[in-house]
């Protein structure tokens, strides 16, 4: 029975695509990457005597006073600077992350207060591993697309956890992005529609009160990452009647450099299409922020008329795929906030000991 469902072909109907009756888009976007970088060779120096391949060049590490709250605030302020919208018009602030600083007390209320959106606002924290940010975008599309609200802020941000010495310690990075979703006629990027593909697949998890996540090694590839991304992307392209060549740019969830390159080629996308959004080698895997910040990097270079495909992946597992088209407004608004490349260029390298201190891995009592 289980296998039957896994192999079940998706049947397309006019309800396949999530497409609101009122067209929606991205009114403002903003990225954030903290200043510090831990080279992957530093992790190898400590745990493998410098032997073996490295999955990325380096990852971004948050400073001592940074967390998902402060990082979301800065990304959201960048999005608001590009949007030029009165913050009291925002009717939802949704923050997706797997590293919310509180177990109980919303990140989103602090962010809403800091960007001036409180108190007439929906606010909640979302959790779906690396897909929590794109889920917030789908929810925002629904709220705006139903005309219940004109603007909703969707954020994906993480300060990812990695067990010392684990394979994930090389890549578990920090960063993310914020998108103000609103009516298409004001948008820098129109969202043509989305499609999500979700199953119960236990590839990666962290139990309550555990500091570090667990993962099921090679199981994370085929049945999890590749299956969900390809299914979501293929269904989205069928439903929008598009092929990879119709898209100037594509961005996929990026836990390492190999997976997004492989899934791109499986789907028929070339290296040039994914190049500007492929940031994992210089900032690490930013989990709920990963595909979203890749999209901001594409928006920093995209031209009006360009089509963009974005597909997230969250363990547990699921993918959200989005078809987007850049409007003539993007070039006029782009320079109103710091670019993703500005944050990547601001870089201070740290050693493993400083990293351990910054990430609170030293027992002080």
């Amino acid at each position, binding site marked *: 029975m289980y296998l039957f469902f896994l192999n079940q072909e998706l049947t397309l109907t006019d309800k396949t695509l999530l497409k609101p009756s009122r067209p929606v888009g991205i009114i403002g976007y903003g990225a954030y990457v*903290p200043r510090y970088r831990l080279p992957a060779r530093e992790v190898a120096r400590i745990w493998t005597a410098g032997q073996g391949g490295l999955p990325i060049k380096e990852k971004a590490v948050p400073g001592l*006073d940074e967390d998902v709250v402060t990082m979301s605030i800065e990304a959201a302020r960048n999005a608001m600077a590009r949007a030029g919208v009165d913050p009291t018009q925002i009717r939802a602030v949704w923050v997706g992350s797997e590293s919310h600083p509180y177990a109980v007390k919303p990140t989103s209320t602090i962010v809403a207060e800091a960007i001036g959106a409180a108190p007439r606002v929906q606010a909640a924290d979302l959790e779906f591993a690396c897909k929590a940010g794109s889920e917030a975008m789908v929810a925002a599309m629904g709220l705006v697309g139903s005309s219940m609200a004109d603007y909703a802020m969707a954020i994906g941000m993480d300060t990812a956890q990695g067990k010392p010495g684990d394979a994930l310690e090389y890549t578990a990075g920090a960063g993310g992005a914020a998108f103000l979703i609103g009516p298409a006629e004001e948008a820098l990027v129109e969202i043509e529609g989305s499609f999500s593909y979700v199953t119960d697949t236990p590839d990666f998890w962290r139990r309550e009160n555990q500091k570090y996540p667990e993962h099921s090694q090679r199981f994370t590839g085929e049945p999890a990452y590749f299956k969900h991304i390809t299914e979501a992307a293929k269904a989205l392209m069928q439903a929008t009647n598009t092929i990879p060549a119709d898209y100037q740019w594509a961005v996929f969830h990026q836990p390492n450099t190999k997976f997004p390159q492989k899934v791109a080629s499986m789907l028929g996308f070339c290296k040039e299409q994914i190049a500007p959004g492929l940031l994992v080698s210089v900032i690490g895997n930013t989990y709920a922020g990963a595909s979203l910040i890749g999209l901001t990097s594409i928006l920093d270079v995209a031209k009006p008329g360009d089509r963009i495909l974005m597909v997230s992946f969250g363990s547990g597992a699921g993918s959200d795929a989005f078809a987007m088209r850049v409007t003539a407004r993007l070039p006029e608004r782009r320079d109103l906030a710091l670019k993703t490349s500005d944050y990547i260029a601001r870089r201070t390298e740290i050693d493993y000991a400083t990293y351990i201190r910054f990430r609170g891995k030293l027992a002080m009592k």
Partner: protein
Amino acid sequence: MEISRHWRIRQQRYNLVGEICPYCEAKIFPPRDVCPDCGHEAKTEYAFSGLGEVYSYTTIYDPPAGYEEYAPYTVALIKLQEGPLVTAQMTDLGDTPVQIGMPVEMVTRRLREDGDERGILIYGYKFRPAFRN
């Protein structure tokens, strides 16, 4: 417990919201409801741009209770573009040396936790080297 105090001043802390004097237009931070320049009542809210420069600074090696995990850190007097001097921590310095006259910008960061790891997290303004000078 000082939760109520932190809660009451959250807009000032998160967004550098001060006051402007309706009589002489002096910008006031932190808010005190009386204009320090002309002595009139001044209760009109005013959001500062967050831009300024370092007026003076010092590095703390022996921090007060609650700030131990951040030491050593730099505290600066920041001359805001709109006039007032604000005391705040510097952040995101990396290997950048602090200098008098250095352009800075406000960011909202974690200041400390209330008590221990069970207490609320307190967020507020700090300043970092300006991205765009």
